[in-house]
């Protein structure tokens, strides 16, 4: 099932295409991060209670605006926007709810002067209601006021407005008059036509891309720590269990795979072992090992010594990392062993190998110089699939053995809805995958010239 890599003709094309893919990955992350349900900042600050004092709500909204500005969330989304025409003062209002409400009125009557008066009246009403003495009536009227904003039906919200004004008039000295709306009889066509607006470089997309590329990754929403100080230690932890596992699996896998491929009938034990490990997922194996080792007490199960990887001694490493590394190794080894042994079995039957035997080339030379280099190409393809998977896929081991690595960080930030961290992790992951794949393509171009000829030679 080794696939022919997607066509990239020359090195230049490869480089340009890699950059294009990186840009695409960044854009995807941006789109994903802006389409998550709920406003992350509102979640971070906590929602205001429905019937709390409006003064407090205003304070809350001020805080929100401050954070929005800090995270560039008050800027337009993209370099340009195509929008339908409506009065500028609506677009400048802080709250989406009010904007939406006013737009309904505007499209029904298209009367800008009356709309401004209506907005001012809404503000005045809010002020007068919050100045009332009786707390219970104040709460009731405030909730009625916010109900008006929620309504999208022009007729019914006018009725509600009239009722509210009557109630407020009964309680305050200043008397309000409900606005009697008049429809603008002018032509409506100007409002049907969309307008192109240029926002310049000060937009969310530009900020996101430049910040991601220059390393200004911002702060976590959960504890306010910089994201870099979260990701890089986690990367260290992940690498410190993944690299030993990968190297060990490669070392053992190359020898056992070559042996099993050269003598298919004598390598039955390793074949069945690899099949068993192939069918046994990492988390199941790890759980079984934990059950066994906590009973026997030979090795500590949980790496409760949470220290940065640089401070860990060799003894610590041996004690705490043996089990996780072995768990990871088992699956990777099974994969490498199977790939290599089947490929060696195929290569062994090639005519040039027999010819080398007949010429009297020593067995070990045939094995290492003829068969081995010609059977590792599918292994390289598999490793490019495996390597990024290892970075994120060590989640099971990290989760079970309680290691604060990348997988654990992703899991925790996903459950905690810490979106800045999540999308930076995904961007990093995507970038690594794209770069590794391009590197593999480059290696193929250099070391296996047959690939280039194969691509789309005869398609259609």
């Amino acid at each position, binding site marked *: 099932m080794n696939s022919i890599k997607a066509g990239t003709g020359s090195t230049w094309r490869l480089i340009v295409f890699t950059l294009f893919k990186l840009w695409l990955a960044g854009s995807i992350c941006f789109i994903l991060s802006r389409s998550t349900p709920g406003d992350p900042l509102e979640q971070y600050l906590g929602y205001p209670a429905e019937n709390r004092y409006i003064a407090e709500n205003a304070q809350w909204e001020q805080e929100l605006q401050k954070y929005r500005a800090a995270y560039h969330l008050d800027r337009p989304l993209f370099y340009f926007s195509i929008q339908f025409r409506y009065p500028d003062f609506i677009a400048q209002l802080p709250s989406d709810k009010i904007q939406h409400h006013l737009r309904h009125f505007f499209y029904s009557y298209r009367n800008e002067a009356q709309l401004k008066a209506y907005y001012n009246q809404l503000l005045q009403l809010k002020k007068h209601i919050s100045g009332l003495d009786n707390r219970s009536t104040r709460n009731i009227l405030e909730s009625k006021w916010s109900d008006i904003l929620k309504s999208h039906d022009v007729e019914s919200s006018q009725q509600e407005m009239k009722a509210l004004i009557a109630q407020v008039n009964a309680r305050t000295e200043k008397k309000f008059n409900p606005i009697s709306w008049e429809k603008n009889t002018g032509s409506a066509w100007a409002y049907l036509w969309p307008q192109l607006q240029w926002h310049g470089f000060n937009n969310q997309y530009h900020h996101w891309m430049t910040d991601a590329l220059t390393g200004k990754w911002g702060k976590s929403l959960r504890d306010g720590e910089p994201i870099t100080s979260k990701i890089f230690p986690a990367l260290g932890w992940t690498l410190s269990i993944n690299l030993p596992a990968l190297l060990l699996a490669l070392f053992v896998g190359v020898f056992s795979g070559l042996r099993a491929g050269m003598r298919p009938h004598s390598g039955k034990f390793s074949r069945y072992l690899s099949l068993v490990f192939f069918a046994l997922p990492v988390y*199941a194996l790890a759980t079984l090992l934990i059950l066994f080792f906590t009973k026997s007490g030979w090795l500590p199960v949980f790496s409760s010594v949470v220290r940065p990887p640089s401070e860990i001694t060799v003894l610590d490493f041996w004690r705490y990392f043996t089990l996780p590394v072995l768990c990871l190794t088992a699956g990777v080894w099974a994969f490498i062993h199977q790939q290599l042994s089947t490929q060696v079995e195929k290569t062994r039957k090639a005519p040039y190998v027999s010819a080398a035997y007949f010429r009297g080339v020593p067995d070990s030379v045939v094995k290492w110089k003829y068969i081995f280099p010609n059977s590792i190409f599918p292994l390289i393809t598999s490793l490019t699939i495996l390597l990024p998977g290892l970075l994120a896929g060590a989640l099971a081991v990290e989760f079970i053995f309680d290691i604060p690595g990348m997988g654990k960080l992703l899991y925790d930030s996903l459950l905690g809805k810490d979106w800045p961290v*999540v999308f930076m992790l995904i961007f990093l992951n995507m970038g690594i995958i*794209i770069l590794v794949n391009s590197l593999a393509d480059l290696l193929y171009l250099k070391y296996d010239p047959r690939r280039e000829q194969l691509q789309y030679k*005869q398609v259609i």
Partner: protein
Amino acid sequence: MKAEQTYQPNIKRVGILWKYPEWLIIALLLIFQAFLVGPGGIMCVEKSEEGQCVEEMTRPIAYDPGEMITGEKLKAPLTEGPKGRHWMGTDHLGRDVAAGWLRGLYYSFTLSLIAGIIAILVGLMIGGLAAYYGNRFPINHWSAECIIVALAILISFVVYHQLRFWLPGLGALISFLFFGLFLSFILWRLGSKALKRTGLIAEGRLNLDQMVMTGVELFESIPALLIMLTILSMIQIAFYWQVGILLGIIGWTTAARFARSEGSKLLYKKYIRDLQRLGLSDLKILWKYILPSILPSLGVVFSYSIAAFILAESFLSFLGIGLPGEFSSWGRMLNDARRFPQSWWLGLFPVLGIFLLVWAYHRLARQLEKKST
């Protein structure tokens, strides 16, 4: 001398299940599940004419999957309980492990089957298109018109989004539909004419293969955990098969990669080119010649991907994301087992279950692989 051909019934095929003992076990467990576990742990042996039960019998597993018995916590396998024997012991809440294990088998099996079917359909379609058209996807194709219509629908949706302020309710929807039709017609006519004039339409070819493979690569690099959590935050899982559909939507990329590599291998064959030169339509070649010849190796990838879905489901349940709490799942049983290292049966049986199913599918895939090559 040519041997005389006579009809011989395939005797070997009758005993095929004996060759696959793991499949025999799975089939028996699935078929007799209705007998082994049931509501109340009681089964009716004989019914009277009025439909009432005359003679009752306790089932081999006398407990319901979610039933908690307070006095029976963490009992070892084969101990006697109040209703019957606990074949696989009980867990920390006093639930019978055997009953939950059997339900877990049923859920895992059906879920992964659904996910596999969806993944193979989606993957086959996308990967097959990428392989067939390669780097020369014709722009003046019917599919280009589809893209134009999709664009028109998108634009008219934006217009509708604005228009609903003007014409509330059904009026906006109807005018939106008319506007979309009108716009797509105009775009199609003007667009195709303009393309013809520039001469692009004769030569214009898209590298569909690279586009699709880039898409697959990028989709694979978004963690499945994120997609799963995002979808789960939007919908409420009420049926276990919904998780299967979600897994299928997430995991189609392997099948797409496979279909692409197999299809592009086939396209080097001469007879496909000959068929194209004879003037057969692309769809006909895809459906009648390419699909049947990749079907055997499709079986291989189907079984491998089902095995992967079984692992994915139990891992997600292990993390507490996959199946909701009311469905018993091997993954969650394993997660519970980590807290009670003294009771080995809590961990062992779910692991054995996962291993049994995955091993069965892997072995099936290997046999199919041997046959197809």
